[in-house]
Every structure is written in structure tokens, then in C-alpha cells.
């Protein structure tokens, strides 16, 4: 099972923390969570993957969809702290070449 923690920082940056397995069943929920944030006016989003134990291509697809929504609203989506196994999935699809994982949540929108 999966849970999503959602909070907004003082800078107005949305932080989403998926806890557990981020797979095809959870993908839609992730997409809806991200869309919900943007619609609520938070277009700068960090997805913190530190507690994501597993991630499949459907979940990657949901991240891309979220990225699109965020950029269309003038913001951006960044990912932070992926585990080694999650990073492997990024590399397998060459997503690591376009979407750079950040080392921490706080600094995700700096530099």
C-alpha cells in the first residue's frame, strides 16, 4: 500500500512524499495529487522519493504528467532523494538524463 504526505513549505513549494510502493495502481493517485496541488495554486512541487521503496514506469509516467501540469502553470516539478533501486528505474528509461534528482528537498528549487 501507499500513502502520500502532502505539505506546503513557507516558500509556497508543495512537497509530496509517497511512502511505500509507487506502482501502476498508485500512479493515478499520484497524478491526481499533483494535479490537485497545481489547481490549488501550488505550481512548484518537489516529490520526495526517500521513502518510496519501489517505483515502476507507470509511476514515472505520472511524474511526467505532473511535470507537464506544473510547467503549464508556470512552475516546475523536481524530484529529490531517490533510493538506489528507484534511481535504476530512472536510468532504465533515460529519464535521469532529463530530470535530475536533487539531494535534498529544501534545496530542490535552488540552483
Amino acid at each position, binding site marked *: 500500500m501507499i500513502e502520500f504526505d502532502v505539505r506546503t513549505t513557507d516558500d509556497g513549494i508543495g512537497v509530496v512524499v509517497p511512502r511505500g510502493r509507487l506502482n*501502476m*495502481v498508485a*500512479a*493515478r493517485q499520484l*497524478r491526481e495529487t499533483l494535479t490537485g496541488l497545481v489547481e490549488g495554486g501550488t505550481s512548484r512541487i518537489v516529490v520526495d522519493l526517500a521513502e518510496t521503496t519501489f517505483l*515502476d*514506469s*507507470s509511476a*514515472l*509516467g505520472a511524474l*511526467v*504528467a505532473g*511535470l*507537464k501540469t506544473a*510547467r*503549464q502553470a508556470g512552475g*516546475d516539478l523536481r524530484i529529490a532523494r531517490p533510493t538506489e533501486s528507484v534511481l535504476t528505474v530512472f536510468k*532504465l*528509461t*533515460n*529519464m*535521469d*538524463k*532529463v*530530470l*535530475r534528482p536533487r539531494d535534498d528537498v529544501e534545496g530542490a528549487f535552488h540552483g
Partner: protein
Amino acid sequence: MSDARRFVVRIVALLTAILGVNYVAWRWLFSVNWDAWWIAVPLVLAETYSLIDSLLFGMTVWKLKGRGEPPVPEPDLTVDVFIATYNEPLDLVLGTARAAQRITYPHRTWILDDGNRAELRARAEAEGIGWITRSADWTDMPRHAKAGNLNNALLATEGEFLLILDADMVPKPEILDRTLGYFRDERMGLVQTPQYFVNVPDHDPLGSQAPLFYGPIQEGKDGWNAAFFCGSNAVIRREALMQLGVSRYAGEVEVGVHRALRTARSVIGQARKDLAPDQVEVRQALDEIDYDIARARRDLDRGEALFDVTYRFQKRVAATRRELVGADLRSLNEDLAIIAGLDRLADDPDLSLATIDESALLQLADREWSPLGAVETVEALVRSIDVDLGGEAQPVMPMATISVTEDMATCMRLHGLGWRSAYHDEILAEGLAPEDLQTMLTQRLRWAQGTVQVMFRENPLVQKGLTLAQRLMYFATMWSYLSGFAALVYIAAPIAYLTLGVLPVQALSTDFFVRLVPFLLINQLLFFVVADGRPTWRGQQYSLALFPVWIRSFTSAFGNVFLGRSLDFAVTPKEKREDTGLRWDLVKPQLVAMGLLVLALVVGGVRLALGQASPFGTIFNMVWVVFDLVVFSVIIQAVRYRGFEPDASTGTSGTGTTTDGATAARTSDEGAA
């Protein structure tokens, strides 16, 4: 598959290759009649074409794989059954959907209604069948036909596996029990089963069944881990498709952004040229953007993550633009129209973003821009090809959209990522074939166009990630669609001899026959042992008789891919057409060819009687002409065919005989791919 059968097939395939190479090499080296080069060269080229076709066929069947009993599926897999429809009659769609509900392995059934029909939705949901239509994201976006329909549904569902069915393909209850077991192999991406049609009489006048393709050819490809996805009756692993979608997305964004930046630079350069000397501020702004473009390109070259680069770039250009507003508004309105057009840059349903016609981009670059117009163009350019893939409904498109037949390209890309495929040779769904000539011709043209499009856009011979054998297996099917040009030569050569006395070979000598005849015979023997009782004659006939379709598919796909022309795409109708009398007009080229062949027989006879021609050569060519006519006779049958009547199916079903010139193509049969 018994070892004995595989052994026999291999021996015959080997002999065919040896005798074929022996014949065609001799033809090139010693027997081309260069004095009559205008027919001699085309003939030897056609024969070479046929030899390569034969070699590829031999290679295909070399690894015939009979999978036999499938493994038992793991329990508790989640499966979505997709029934794709556009405009088929509701009763037909619902009939298929009800059969899908009766599939025994637990699953969910969905109707993918590209026609967005309220009545279909109401009736489906009343029976507990899911109904999906395009989401709002697709408004004013390229729809990509069936591939788009499937891509839309992929995001609305979440099963681990997908069974894809055309609206007329009624599945048997055991279809999932018989196929899911193959996915115990965790790298197995796709399992294809045959497409079989119930509304076809035994003599199959329209060549609807593809017994050779859905049999030995697929089993042979399977042996090389290259069994094809054929659009329907296949089970696919969602993870494989999604991985494909995401990795294609990453690749296309990269290609697209590089192109956009290159074009952006030209646009700025053009705008700067036209500046008056006193427009200092404007010049400065354009210089800044030019610098930003160069910097973005440098950052990309250094390997910086693409989205970081484009994000920074867009922020900076937006800032510069704000400074510029008001500086020059003279010719802005005109530019704005063009900019609006940019968002439809990728509007051609056959194109994806990475394959945008570069000439369209170049035209943009050559226009005379006002400075502000130029800056906005740069923004729009990068936006259109940036992360959001602005010209597409959804950024991730797992099903390939480069071709009107999405299946082959998708499958080739899956293989390229290292996924495996399987062909399970058991009829597990029964569908409806076209029952009239016009619909059949439209369908074959579409398949052929789709295949040739893929050949031009993503030629398998140069695709990374495929094994050599896989490349050749994909290429073999494409190659077989080029048979139309060879057919023309095989019609023209005997006519040239009988009417003009022109012989394309140096002499009809013993040398010629001892090489040609054994090759022809062994080639037919290969068909015979490979077919193992399945009818192949219809397929052989249509591969020659539909030569105008194959030629048109090649020229129209060429025009589409390289010249940006429309394909005149048409969806294959599943309904019977109105009775409009016999449509001889649809097969005019074939009728002309037959007329010329008959005329050649008459002229040849007269020339023989007058002593102007050699008896041996005349008779040899007459036999050839008669063979061509027998092949073409299928066209007459097809025109006269009045549709399927279940009781009247008493026709003859022939088995393979001889072929023309050198060897037989199986295009019509392969066409089912």
C-alpha cells in the same frame, strides 16, 4: 513441433538457399541480355528481389518454434480487457464485450469508444462493462487513431496486463488462461495469438485468412524472439508498454529541444539583421537571448539535465520579453498569427514531436520577424517541444504513433528495450473479415502503408537494441511488401518476348533451365513442408494480383514520410457495404494487365505460325503467361464475390503450386501483420 519436421524444413530451406543463390548469381554473371537492358535489368533485379525474399523466408522457418501447451498462469494477476471501437455497430461491439465478460480468468472489461457514443456508454454500463472515451486532454490535439485510443485508456486503467481486442474479435472464455502463463517469464512483454475470421468461405475469395502468417511465419519469428504484435488478440504487460512510453518520451524531448534551440537561433539572427541602427535596446535584448540560446546548448552538451536547462532558459527569455514589450509593436500582429500556428506544429496525426518536419522549422527561421515577434517565437518553439510536449494530448505515448499501423512499430520498440514476445498458435478469438472487394482493398492498403511507413521512419536494420536476427525478421515482412514492383516485371517480361521477340536472358538454354527449374521446384517444396497442410495458394495469388495496392502503398508512404503528404488514411469498416454492383473499376490495372497478357498470347501464336518466333521460347513464355493469368483469376472471383453466406461455402481450397519468374512472395499472407 517434432524434431523430424524441423529437420526436414531446415534441409529444404538450406537447399532452397543454395539453388537460389546458384541461379541468381549465374543470371547476373552470365545470362543478362544487355542488348535488351530495358527489360533484362528489371527482370534480373526482380529475380534478385524474389531470391532475397526466399532467403528471408528460409531464415524465418529455420527456427520454427511450436510452443505447444502454454504454462499455467499465476493466480491473482490483474488484467484489463480492451475492446477498441470507433464507428462499428453497437450490437457488434456489445457482442464482443459480453464475450469478453465471460472470459474465465478474473479481469475487467472496457469498451474504448473513440466515437464517444452516449448510447454505447449507457448500454455498456447497464451491463457492468466499463466505458472509456478520450479525456479532455485530447481536445484539439492529434488523435493518433487507434494508438491514441489505447494510450488514452492506458492512463485510465491500472491492470498489470492488457488484452487488446478489435471490436469484431469475439474472445473465447479461455483466452487469458491460455496466454497469461507465458508471463511467468518476467521479461516477457507480449503474447500474440492468431487472428481468425468466421465469415469467410473455404475458398476464401478475398484472401482474408492468413494461415501461413498466423502459423509458420509467426512461429519462425518467435524462434528468433521476434513474434510480432498484430494489433488485436494479444496480451501485453503494462510495465513493458509504460517503460517504452517513458523512455520514448525522454528521447523525443531531447531531440525536440535540440532542434528547437537550433531554429530559435536562426529566428533571432534574422530579426537582428532587420534592425534599424537606432534600436539599441532591442538589439541588446536580442543579443541576450542569443547568448541564452548558446548557453542552453552548451549546458546540454555538457550533459546537464534537460529539464533544468529548459526551465532556466524559459525564465530568462520571459524576463527579456517583458523588457521588450512596447519597444516595437509595429508588425507584431502579423507575427502573432504565426506563433499561434506554432502550437499546432505537430498537428499532423502521423507525426510525433521528434519527427516534426524540419522544413517547417526552417520556414519559420527564414521569415522576417519583428523583434518581439522573434522573441515570442523562441518561447513558443521551446514550449512546444519542451517537457510538456505542448502539441500532444499526453506526454507519454506508449503505443507508437509513427505509423497508421501502431502494432509493428510498438513491438519493434519493445524488442529494442529487451522485452521478449511469444506467439501462441491457438485460435482464441474469432473476428469478421471484410466481405467486399473495396473494403478489403482499403484494409490491405492500410496495412501495407503502415508497414512501409515504419520501414522509412524506423528502419529495423539500423535499430539499436535489436539482435541481427530480429532486425532481419522485421525487415522480412517489410521486404515482402515491395513485391508490387517485381510483379510488374514478371508481367512485362513474357509480354515483351511474345509480342516483340525480345529475350531478357541471353538464351533459353539448358544452362538456364537446369538452374531455374530445380530452384522453382525446391522453393515450392519449401512452402509445402512449411505449410504442413495449411492453404497457401490464395496468399501467393494475392501477393502478385494486388500489385497496384503494394505499389501505391510504397509511393504514398514515401510521399507521406519524406514529402509530408497525406496518406488518405481510412479506417477499415466492419459493416457490409451497400450493394453497388460489380466493381470492376477497383481492379482496372489488373484487368489491363490481364488484357495485355491475353493479347500477348494471341500475338505470340501468330508470330509462331508465321515462323517469326522459336517454338520453344514461345511455348515457355506462353506457359508463363498462362500462369500469370491463373494467378490473376482470383481478382475476377473477388469482384464477383457477393459476401458470406454460411451455407454456400463449398469452394475449393487449393494448396501451393508453382510461382512466376523465380520465387513466391507471401505478401498477401504477411499482410495480416
